């Protein structure tokens, strides 16, 4: 799914003083591309993702997902949403949780592998009848991942999905996401504040800064996958991204 943002901005006016969360931002994402949004807290990266997910409406500008507004894409179940909180239903089994996208909004069915197959893909074949509260945090996110796949959506919006997990689990899971991305070819917009993670995952890393949020730079990661975050090529990208995030020029002087 092709993603297009043109001069999109968001100002929250419901509070006492208006809060400019995102300044005028333009971004084009090709179909099947893996894009990471990176930046400090309050840089508007989550706001941008929520705009794409049709959770909030832009103050100005235009968003197009395959030439349709986000609301139309959401109505057709074309958006898979995944966040830090796996949002599993504790009263349903793992299998039923994964089957949820098949049970709601039935008139817009999209082809996707059945829940049992998806659970096998994320390594949870032995836990289909378990209840989510009994699973570890990492396993819960695997269930959420399988559920996202069950939508068959061509756009995955992921808001720091593994930020609450320990380093090792997090690496294993990001590798699985990469594998599934290569298998299903969705467009992925992935929000993170972990630089190494962004370099491991993305085709392009969009660096954002705060108040109001805007894009400071976009770095294309031209490395073959799987990537090793400790390899010299990766470290060079990590350095470049850190420099961008700190607002320094190439000589290391502060631009502010």
């Amino acid at each position, binding site marked *: 799914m092709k993603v297009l943002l043109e001069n999109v901005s968001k100002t929250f006016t419901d509070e006492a003083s208006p809060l400019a969360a995102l300044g005028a931002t333009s971004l084009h994402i090709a179909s099947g591309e893996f894009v990471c949004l990176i930046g400090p807290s309050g840089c508007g990266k989550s706001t941008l993702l929520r705009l794409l997910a*049709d959770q909030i409406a832009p103050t100005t500008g235009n968003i197009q997902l395959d030439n349709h507004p986000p609301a139309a894409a959401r109505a057709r179940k074309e958006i898979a949403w995944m966040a830090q909180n*796996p949002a599993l*239903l504790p009263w349903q089994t793992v299998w039923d949780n994964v089957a949820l996208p098949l049970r*709601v909004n039935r008139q817009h069915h999209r082809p996707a592998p059945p829940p049992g197959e998806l659970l096998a893909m994320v390594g949870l074949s032995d836990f289909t009848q378990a209840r989510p509260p009994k699973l570890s945090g990492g396993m819960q996110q695997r269930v959420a991942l399988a559920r996202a796949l069950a939508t068959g959506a061509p756009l995955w919006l992921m808001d720091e999905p593994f930020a609450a997990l320990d380093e090792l689990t997090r690496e294993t899971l990001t590798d699985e996401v990469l594998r599934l991305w290569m298998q299903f070819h969705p467009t992925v917009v992935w929000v993170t504040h972990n630089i190494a993670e962004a370099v491991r995952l993305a085709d392009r890393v969009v660096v954002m800064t705060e108040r109001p949020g805007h894009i400071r730079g976009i770095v294309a990661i031209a490395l073959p996958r799987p990537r090793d975050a400790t390899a010299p090529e990766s470290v060079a990208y990590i350095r470049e991204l850190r420099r961008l995030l700190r607002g320094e020029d190439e000589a290391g002087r502060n631009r502010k």
Partner: protein
Amino acid sequence: MTLDISGLFKMATPGSQRAALRRDGLSVLLIVGTALVLWEIIVRVRNVPVYLIPAPSVIAVTLWQQAGYYLSQSLVTLGEAAGGLVLGLTVGILVAVLVTFWRQMERGVLALAILIKTTPLAAIAPLLVIWFGFGPLPKVIVTGLMTFFPVLINVHSGLHAVDGATLALFHSLNASRQELFRYAQWPTALPYLFDALKVVAPLSLVGAVVAEWAGASAGLGRVMWLAYANFTMPALFAAIFCSAVMGIGLYWAVIVLEKQVIFWK
């Protein structure tokens, strides 16, 4: 009128459950037993006349000698309480669901509910007897009025307690209001419903007794009323005892049912 024995049933692991139950049963026996023995001693030592406070032994004898009578009167009250409880539950749940789907009605309906809630039911009960006679109907209505409010408030809160992450998920799937209700809101509200039930199940007996007080052909309320009219306090306390035992039983039944229904907690 009823004992709060919630602490009895909070044990989590099945292994320690039996030992914990035995320990709790022992503590209840010890404390209630001590209270009864003290009561007996004070009444006997101070020679309190039976028409002021009868000794527990006198009450026990009364219950024993007229067991059939007290059982049948208890069942009348229990039936009325159960009827009122079903009425209160049905109305409370229906109204909570209704205002969840039609938000415009929320304020008005809740205001009306508070209005009904603040009406002193002891004053309304005789009026209902004038309207509907000495049969069970006025008792069912009074109990219903007494129990619907906690159910309404709790279920209403529960239906709105779905967390933001789950709402975002259902939003992303473009789930309908009905789907959100069925898969997220209703299961979320169930623990809230049971919290209300723990309060209103024993309360339903109070409702039935208060209503019987206003005029009844049978039931524990009538037994109490007759006890006052004839100055037979053992009968009064025997009726109170029956009501208390049923109250504990109802509370316990709610706890057992809750464990079955809310299996994920």
